[in-house]
C-alpha cells in the first residue's frame, strides 16, 4: 500500500527467531499514536476483580469507564450475581471542580444498605487520580459505618499499563486474606488455590472437577466465581497454582512471602499442558493415591478426546497460525497447543508479556517466526501477510482486521461463550480452529488478499 513499514520507535519491540540476537523491548509504556491494542490500569484491575461474584463493584469516575466494562467478561457464577452490575458514581463537570468525595459517600450510603454486599470494591479512574479525592478515607469511613470491607482500588488509568492494574487488584485481594487457621498435625490435606482463572464459560468449574477427581480440593479460585468468604480463607491452602501468570504471579509471590505457601506455574490449555499440570500437582503433593488418580484421569480423558483431536489434526496439518493475545502465559500455551493439532505459530505477540515469557516463546517457535510486544493493527496486518498466516488468534478488536485480510480467526478473549481449558476445551479449540480454517466460505470469496503477498 506504499505505507511505511515499521515506525522507528517500535523496531526494538519486534524480533525474529534466529535472526540477529536482540532482546525484545517490553514492559514499557505504549508509544503515542501507535494505535496500541492495550487498555489501561483500570482495565487490568477491573478484569481481575470483577469475577468476585458477591462483591459490589463501584466505579468512581465518569460514566464511560463503567459503561465499557459492564459485564464485559464472560465469567460465570453459581448463585451470587451482584458482580454483573456496573455501578458508577457518574461524575459530572461539577464533581470534577468541587471533588467527588461527597458523591462517592452518598453512593456507598445508598448501595450498601440496598444490596447488603459482604464486600465493596471502589475503583479509581483517571480523573479521580488528578482531582485528588481521598479514596482511602472515604472507603475507610464507609467500612467502619457498615462493618464490611470497602476497598479502594488504585486504578487511575494513566498511572501505568494494564499490568499495573493487575498489581493494584492483587494488592487489594491480598489485604482481604486473613492469617491461616492452625492445622492439626498429621492431617493430610491436599488443598490448593487456583490463581488466574476467571471462570470464562465455566473453565474454572472444569478444572475444579479434574482436581476433585484426583483427590485435591480447590480452596478458592482467584477470581472466577469466587466469594469474599473464600478469599478470606486463601491462606489455608497448601499450594498456589497460577495459570494466568501475568495477572497473578504478584499475588502468589505475596502469599508465599507472608504465609509460606509454595506456588506452581501451570496451564490447562491443550492436552500436553493439562496432563503435565495434573502430574506436577500430584508430584507436589507426593501422594501415591493422587499420582495414581491423576494418571488414570489423564489416560481416560485423553482416550476420550484423542480420536476427535486427531480427526481435526489430519485436516489442519501444516497450517500456519498467528497469535496476538493479552498475556504471555496464554501465548506460550498456544504455541504448544497448535502443535498438538499439527500447526506452527509464525507470528506471536502480547500486550503485556514479560521478558522471561518472551524468552520462552522464542525457545518454542520455529526459525523465522516474528515475536511482537504491544503491537498495533499496522504491524499485525503486515506480519500476518508477510508470514503467510492462515489464522489469527486474538480478541474482538483484531477479528475484523483478520477477516478483511482473508485470514481465519479464533476468539481467545474474555467474553467467549465456550470453554477452552482442559480436555473439553482442547476439543473446543480444535473444533473452533477447524470451523474457521475449514469453512467453505473462504473458497466462495476467493479473490481476496492472497496470503504471503504484501
Amino acid at each position, binding site marked *: *500500500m506504499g*505505507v*511505511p513499514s515499521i*515506525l522507528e*520507535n517500535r523496531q526494538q519491540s519486534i524480533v525474529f527467531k534466529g535472526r540477529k540476537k536482540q532482546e525484545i523491548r517490553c514492559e514499557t*509504556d505504549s*508509544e*503515542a*499514536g*501507535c*494505535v496500541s*491494542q*492495550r*487498555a*489501561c*490500569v*483500570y*482495565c487490568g484491575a477491573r478484569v481481575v476483580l470483577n469475577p468476585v461474584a458477591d462483591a459490589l463493584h*463501584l466505579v468512581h469516575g*465518569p*460514566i*464511560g469507564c*463503567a*459503561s*465499557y466494562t*459492564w*459485564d464485559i467478561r464472560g465469567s460465570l457464577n453459581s448463585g451470587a450475581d451482584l458482580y454483573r*452490575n*456496573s*455501578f*458508577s*458514581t*457518574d*461524575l*459530572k463537570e461539577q464533581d*470534577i471542580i468541587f471533588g467527588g468525595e461527597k*458523591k462517592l459517600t*452518598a*453512593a456507598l450510603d*445508598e448501595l450498601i444498605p440496598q444490596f447488603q454486599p459482604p464486600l465493596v470494591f471502589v475503583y479509581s*479512574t*483517571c*480523573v479521580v487520580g*488528578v*482531582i485528588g479525592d481521598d479514596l482511602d478515607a472515604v472507603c475507610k469511613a464507609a467500612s467502619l459505618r457498615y462493618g464490611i470491607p470497602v476497598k479502594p482500588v488504585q486504578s487511575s*488509568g*494513566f*498511572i*501505568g499499563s494494564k499490568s499495573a492494574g493487575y498489581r493494584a487488584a492483587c494488592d487489594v485481594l491480598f489485604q482481604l486474606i486473613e492469617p491461616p487457621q492452625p492445622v492439626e498435625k498429621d492431617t493430610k490435606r491436599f488443598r490448593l488455590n487456583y490463581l488466574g482463572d476467571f471462570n470464562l464459560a465455566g473453565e474454572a468449574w472444569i478444572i475444579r472437577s479434574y482436581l476433585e477427581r484426583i483427590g485435591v480440593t480447590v480452596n478458592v479460585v482467584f477470581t472466577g466465581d469466587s466469594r469474599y468468604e473464600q478469599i478470606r480463607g486463601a491462606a489455608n491452602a497448601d499450594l498456589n497454582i497460577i495459570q494466568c501468570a501475568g495477572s497473578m504471579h504478584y499475588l502468589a509471590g505475596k502469599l508465599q512471602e507472608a504465609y509460606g505457601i509454595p506456588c506452581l506455574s501451570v496451564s490447562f490449555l491443550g492436552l500436553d499442558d493439562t496432563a503435565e499440570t495434573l502430574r506436577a500437582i500430584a508430584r507436589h503433593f507426593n501422594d501415591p493415591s493422587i499420582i495414581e488418580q491423576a494418571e488414570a484421569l489423564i489416560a481416560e480423558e485423553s482416550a476420550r478426546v484423542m480420536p476427535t483431536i486427531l480427526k481435526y489434526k489430519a485436516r489442519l496439518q501444516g497450517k500456519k497460525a498467528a497469535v496476538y493475545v493479552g498475556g504471555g502465559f496464554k501465548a506460550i500455551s498456544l504455541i504448544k497447543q497448535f502443535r498438538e493439532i499439527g500447526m506452527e505459530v509464525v507470528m506471536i505477540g502480547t500486550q503485556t508479556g514479560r521478558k522471561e515469557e518472551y524468552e520462552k516463546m522464542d525457545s518454542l517457535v520455529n526459525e523465522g517466526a516474528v515475536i511482537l510486544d504491544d503491537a498495533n*493493527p*499496522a504491524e499485525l496486518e503486515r506480519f500476518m501477510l508477510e508470514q503467510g498466516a492462515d489464522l489469527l488468534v486474538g480478541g*474482538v*478488536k483484531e*477479528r*475484523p*482486521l483478520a*477477516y*478483511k485480510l482473508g485470514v481465519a480467526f479464533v476468539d481467545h478473549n474474555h467474553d467467549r461463550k465456550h470453554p477452552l481449558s482442559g480436555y473439553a476445551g482442547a476439543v473446543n479449540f480444535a473444533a473452533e480452529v477447524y470451523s474457521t480454517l475449514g469453512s467453505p466460505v473462504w473458497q466462495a470469496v476467493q479473490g*481476496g*488478499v492472497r496470503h504471503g503477498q504484501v
Partner: protein
Amino acid sequence: MGKYNRDLSQNPCHMCMPMGGILALKGIEGAMPLLHGSQGCSTYMRRHIAEHFNEPVDVASSALNEKGTVYGGKTNLKKAMDNVRRVYQPKLIGILTTCLAETIGEDIRQISSEYQAETECECRIVTAATPGYGGTHTEGYWLTLRELLAQLTAPVSKHERINIIVPAALSPADLREIKQCLERFGAEYTLLPDISETMDRPYEDCYGKMAGGGTPLDEIAQMAGSFATLELGGPVDAKLSPGQLLQDSYGVPLYKLPIPIGLANSDQFIEALSAVLNKPVPAAIRRERGLLMDAMIDAHKHSFQVRPVLFGDPELVFALAGFCAENGMFPGVVATGGGSAGWRKAVVELLTDSMNPLDVIEETDMSIVRTRSEVNQVNLAVGPSVGRYLEEQADIPLVRIGFPIQDRLGAQRILSVGYQGTALLLDKMVNCLLERKHKTYRSDLFQAYYQEREVARHELSAS
C-alpha cells in the same frame, strides 16, 4: 411519570463524549480520530465500535502516562500526530480530549496550531473538547460535528447542494436509504457524517488502512454555501446543533426534523425535501408510503397489543415514540441516558392518547428502566444491546436498534428509516410478539380454562 433518578448509575444506558466524537469522525473522508488521554479510552471504544460494525476500527491515543499528566501532554500529542501521519496518511486528524486531558487543562487547539506551524503538514487538524464527564456520547457526537463545521468552513458562494446532518444512532443501511431518497429527488447533497461506506466495507482483494467513503472534506468546506440544512436530530439542543451553527454563522436556513422513523416522521422528512428542493415527491417514494400504510393496517390489531419500553439515544427514542404512538403501540417506558427536561416534555406530548401507565425518564440507567418496565408491564423492548439484560432477567424480548448492538450480527444492515425501513421495524416488533404468542398460547389457554373446568367437575361431583 416522574423522576426515579439517583445520584449514581447502575448499569449505564449511555456512553461518554469521546465515543460520540469517534463515531462522528468515522464518517469523514480520510479522518483519523486521536484521543488525547490515557491508552485505555481508545482501546475500550475501539472494542465497542468494532463489535457493532464488525469492521476494523483504528483510533489513536496520545497514551498519556504519569509524566505526561504531571508535566503536560504536549510532547505525547505531537508525537502521536507524527506517528499517525506516518502510518495512516490521513487527510484529517480529529483530536478529541478525554477526562484526563481536560482535567489537567490541556490546550489542544494551541498544541495543534503549534504543530501545524512546526511541521507545515498537509493534513487538516480539527479539535473537540470531549471530556467523559462533560456529557453523553450523543452530545460528544453533535459537538464534534459542530467543531468540524466551525473549523473547516468559511463563507463561500451559494450553490445547489443541500446539507443533510444525521445522528449517531443510524446504521450504514439507514444512511444508504436516505441517500437513495435524495437521489430519487435528483438532489445534490452533502451528508454529514457519512458512515455508509466507512463502517460497512466490502471484502476486497486489497485492504486499505483508511476506509474509503465518508463526507468529502471539500464538501464540508462548501456546507456554508448551501441553501438549506436538514438536521435529523429531533429535539437537539441548539447549542450542540451543527445546523444551528451553519444558520447562525452563514445564514443557511435550518430545518430541524425528527429521525424519519414512522409514517409521520418520514412524511416530515419527505415533505421538507420536496419543499426546499421545490420538487414533487417522486412516484417511487409515494408508492413506498402506500406500502407502509398497508403494512400498518395489516399489523394494527397486533400492534395494539405491543406495550414497548423504548431506550437509547434521545433522538432515536423520540422518533420511536412517535412511530409507536401512530401504530397504537403505546409505550410503558420511554427512557434515555441523556436527554433533558425539554426532551421529556416533547416525548410526553406525543403520547397523550395513551391509556397505559407511562414513565418518560431522562438521564437514567438500565436498572431503573428495568424496574419501571416491570411495573408498567411492558412486553417488548426496543433499543441497543444494553437491553439484553431485560431479555435475560425480566423476560422482555428485545428488538435491537441503535448503537451499540454487540450480541447479534448485522448491525450495519439494520434498516429502520424511511417508509420502507419503518415497515421493516414494524414487522420486526409485531413478529417478536407473535412468535411468543404462537409458542405459548396453547398452553396458556389450557392452563387458564381446561383446569378450571376440571375443578368445576370435581366440585360438582362432591356436592
